[in-house]
């Protein structure tokens, strides 16, 4: 590498660093500023003490958790089944999963408003009629495109057919085949699908707002009108959580690759 390209690298890195980090740094400063001068952690403590914000944080975390679980339960067995038993349906499933990317949130809301009257009606029977957790069904759909890509990549990295047949010939039923053989070998894909889905759900504003539910982002926007520092602190916390999740993901999958999957190269 010549000195010029090395210098160019450093310059680019610094430029991108400034581009990404400067707004975060400015937000952090703003969230720590006390009206009238000095510094204060008040905005940050409000994340867990504010009457409006804290419940919204819990709702968004709950939504993220339930959406990820539902998405995995829906997608993992479906994708395995399609690959093993209905390869002709693979393009169709891929198309359906990627479809939410192409439909604007507004259109989704208009389309689902009528359906949701029924969803909230039925959720009413288990005491969740008014709960924002009802959003989970839309969020599962919303996370499908990202989750599909992640799972598809990790399923392609293993010889699914042969592994499944080997497991079956050794006496494993379909449940055991999936849980004991397939899942441990696509674990990194499931992890990345989950983390991306969490990031999507925590950052979702449009649909929640249009449907009239109060999730984290909706409340952040509301708060922004009255209490700037707290809303910025909450936004920053969301970004940091997403960052930490992605970091964990890359560390976890790297560790796994070294121990197990890396060897699949032959």
């Amino acid at each position: 590498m010549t000195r010029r390209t090395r210098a160019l690298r450093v310059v680019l890195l610094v430029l991108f660093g400034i581009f990404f980090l400067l707004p975060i740094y400015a937000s952090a400063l703003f969230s720590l500023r006390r009206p009238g001068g000095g510094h204060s952690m008040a905005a940050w403590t409000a994340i867990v003490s504010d009457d409006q914000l804290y419940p919204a944080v819990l709702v968004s975390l709950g939504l993220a958790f339930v959406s990820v679980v539902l998405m995995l339960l829906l997608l993992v067995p479906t994708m395995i089944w399609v690959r093993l038993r209905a390869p002709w349906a693979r393009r169709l499933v891929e198309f359906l999963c990627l479809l939410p990317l192409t439909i604007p949130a507004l259109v989704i809301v208009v389309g689902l408003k009528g359906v949701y009257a029924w969803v909230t009606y039925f959720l009413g029977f288990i005491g969740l009629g008014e709960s924002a957790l009802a959003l989970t069904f839309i969020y599962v759909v919303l996370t499908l495109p990202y989750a599909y890509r992640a799972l598809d990549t990790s399923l392609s990295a293993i010889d699914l057919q042969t592994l499944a047949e080997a497991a079956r010939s050794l006496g494993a039923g379909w449940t055991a085949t999936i849980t004991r053989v397939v899942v441990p070998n696509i674990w990194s894909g499931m992890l990345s699908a989950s983390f991306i889905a969490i990031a999507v759900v925590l950052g979702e504003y449009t649909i929640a707002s249009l449907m009239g539910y109060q999730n984290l982002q909706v409340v952040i926007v509301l708060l922004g009108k009255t209490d700037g520092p707290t809303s910025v602190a909450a936004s920053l916390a969301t970004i940091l959580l997403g960052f930490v999740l992605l970091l964990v993901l890359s560390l976890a999958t790297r560790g796994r690759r070294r121990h197990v999957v890396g060897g699949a190269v032959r």
Partner: protein
Amino acid sequence: MSQRPTERTPSDRSRPGVSVELTDLTRTYGQVNALDGLTLRLEPGELVALLGPSGCGKTTALRILAGLDEATSGTVAVDGQDLTSVPANKRDMGMVFQAYSLFPHLTVLDNVAFGLKLRGDDRTNRHLRAAEMLELVGLSEHSEKYASQLSGGQQQRVALARALAIRPRVLLLDEPLSALDAKVRVQLREEIRRVQLEVGTTTLFVTHDQEEALAVADRVGVMSHGRLEQIAAPAELYAHPATPFVAEFVGLNNKVPAVVSAGKAEVLGVQVPTLVGSVEDAGLAMVRPESLSVRADSEGTASITSVAFLGPISRVHCTLADQTPVIAQLTSSQARDLAPGQRVSLEVEPAPVLVVPAATMGA
């Protein structure tokens, strides 16, 4: 042809093993008949090889026996018990696949113990059994490794140990050697035979490699177009092919014009006996390369086109007076003085030959 590694001794017959019966199996995929009325019986403890070109239905037959594919019609029975509608995981069959199939997330030991864990064996028992199986295939010292740390041949040996660990009623080998290089292939096929004789499990071995089939099997079934052309002991199959397809597929064959009368064929001027199924007049005799001898002869009617040196043996490609190409297999010392362009005379040894109608061979 290589030596058969181990011969079955009479006492082996008493080993545990069950019979397998495939009756009138058909399998159609759309318009294609992968299996067209296959009937096959494996005796208890026997190793039968199914041999044929790709697409002949041999793998389909094995997969149907394993329960991994469904027959369009026909039945599968093991030890007299009808298994046709029993799912793969309830059939108790150990299988080794063509592709490497070890579970990447488990160690070698856990791979071998996998089937036992599913059967509810406790940790001590299944590890004992797995260790025993690894010793059988000579890989004890690798038990804590992952599949990625093993060579292809080692992976297939672990797969064999894993298949046998569950004490299967039938062992199924689906071209287990075809992903390996030539030297390992020969070693491993001999090892498979040794292990199979040791455990006495009835085994179906599918391969497209005739040398492999002849070397390991008690009986070899040759398949073509979803049907069994002939099933016989290796030597019998080699010496007495029942159909032109078998004669051609098993061993490299020359088609030499011949005239048959009164059960004798005149081939290259020599009278040789004919096999059952031969035509009664003019046809083509299927003559093996090793049945031909080549002598330098300036008056000879044949000429050498090329000589291929293959180490201990050489293949001499010749053209007869009527332009028929033939290949003779000689020891390399016999072939030493032969050169392309040389005139030679050919002689055929008086072993029985199959004479087929000229038209059927498309020659």
